[in-house]
């Protein structure tokens, strides 16, 4: 076969408006789904930590079911299955002047539900990683448990949660490619349509792959910046530089201590 370089460069450097729309939709769905998943994940995590047994049971059941079934199956059940069974049908709706397609709503809901189960586990382990003495110190100073959670536990737990949450978001952006199965015209779907029309299958999917790579790489930069900001605020050394993160180049001499360890009071003694 012959690789059509001119077509490849053109698709890569001046993509069609449809492709750019697909790219935008990928980003929007990822960001909205992630934001909602963070909220829901926090709620599930707090339910899991609650002393109220039904909450605890609900949280473990939810995490068990969502993590134990594939995202693809969940999406199809939510969008196609529910409609077929006449349980719920996602209709196109007008939100703030723009028409949101039913499939896009289903995609956001599906990704949110799926991601929230993983996020709740990240939140739970983040909260648990803060030394128990921190909470006791706050309580001994006359803070209520809620107050201590807000001022002492969460600010420390966030630093521990950001790296796994960032990885989660990275995965979420890539998972949007399966939304094509329910007919969301995100980047992958647009790519498939283009390849069907032009038969430049290889060229187009390489371009699609490069754009996903661009998205995740940009995100890696943003995530590193967030981690650095948090570390500086906490008086810790900066996170690994982006290059190390992307290409895995490691020097043994400059190992940065894991944040969880740095929080132990004993090692400061």
């Amino acid at each position: 076969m012959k690789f059509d370089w001119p077509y490849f460069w053109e698709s890569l450097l001046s993509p069609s408006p449809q492709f750019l729309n697909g790219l935008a939709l990928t980003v929007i769905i990822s960001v909205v789904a992630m934001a909602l998943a963070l909220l829901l994940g926090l709620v599930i995590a707090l339910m899991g930590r609650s002393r109220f047994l039904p909450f605890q049971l609900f949280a473990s059941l939810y995490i068990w079911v969502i993590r134990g079934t594939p995202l693809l199956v969940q999406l199809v059940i939510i969008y196609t299955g529910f409609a077929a069974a006449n349980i719920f049908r996602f209709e196109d709706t007008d939100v703030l002047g723009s028409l949101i397609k039913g499939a896009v709503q289903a995609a956001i809901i599906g990704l949110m539900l799926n991601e929230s189960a993983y996020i709740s586990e990240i939140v739970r382990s983040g909260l648990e990683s803060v030394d128990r003495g921190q909470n006791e110190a706050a309580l001994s100073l006359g803070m209520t448990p809620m107050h201590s959670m807000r001022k002492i536990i969460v600010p420390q737990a966030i630093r521990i949660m950001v790296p796994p949450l960032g990885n989660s978001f990275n995965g979420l952006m890539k998972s949007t490619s399966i939304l094509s199965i329910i007919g969301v015209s995100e980047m992958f779907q647009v790519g498939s349509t283009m390849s069907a029309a032009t038969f430049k299958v290889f060229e187009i999917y390489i371009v699609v792959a490069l754009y996903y790579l661009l998205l995740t790489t940009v995100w890696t930069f943003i995530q590193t910046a967030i981690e650095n900001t948090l570390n500086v605020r906490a008086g810790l050394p900066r996170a690994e530089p982006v290059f190390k993160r992307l290409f895995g180049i490691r020097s043994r001499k400059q190992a940065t201590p894991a944040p969880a360890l740095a929080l132990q009071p004993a090692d400061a003694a």
Partner: protein
Amino acid sequence: MTTQHAASTSASTPPSDPHDNIVQAVDVCKSFGDKRILSDVNLTVARGEVVVMVGPSGAGKTTMLRTINRLESIDSGEIRVNGELIGQRVNKHGKVVERSARDLARQRADIGFVFQHFNLFPHMSVLENISLAAVEVRHQPKSKVNEYARELLARVGLSDKADARTRSLSGGQQQRVAIARALAMRPALMLFDEPTSALDPEMVGEVLTVMKDLAEAGMTMIVVSHEMGFTREVADRVVVMDAGTIIESGAPDQVFSNPRHDRTRQFLSKVL
């Protein structure tokens, strides 16, 4: 409670007027699972008194101390601080029930607690550590609180560390900040849980000096400690615990030189 009785006839006895007793613990029992940690502990501490609790590890000293600000709940008995049941209240049917979280927080605000591992907040500067609770809990104006925080830092000899990160301090410095943090709430009572046990030997002295100054300034203190020199010098009363009970209580000179109990004698022979 013969030992208790014996203590109340000795020279450094707390006055019998119950209103002068800042802490009054009666028949306190506590188990973790089926392991008995405290059995029928009675402890009375008068305002201004410095009480040091000693005894072999596992005797229940730390647990007892933690029940006084309800970091540890109790199974039976009662503990009053300033005349109020701590963490509990009597409802209108005459039953003892848990206090609300807010109410317990209000009670704890008057009781300073110093931990073995300092537990400073690593995401804040030294000054923020000290002023946090006065601002957040007592809602005092920040400028006034910071002023007092600096005063306290000077008192513990760390004036130059106000803006430092807690992580950059030595263990002894961290513990002095922790003491200042507790004092910022102007507590009526200070509890110290083995405050020098996690320190390198050369840093023990600086912390004990701060505690000694505090005692001389008239602070009511209950200290769990293995520092016998400090105890002899600063304590008004020594309480010896063993296997979850108070086996002996009295002035340091009397307990150290003429212990009544065999187990006290055994314990002292190992640490003195």
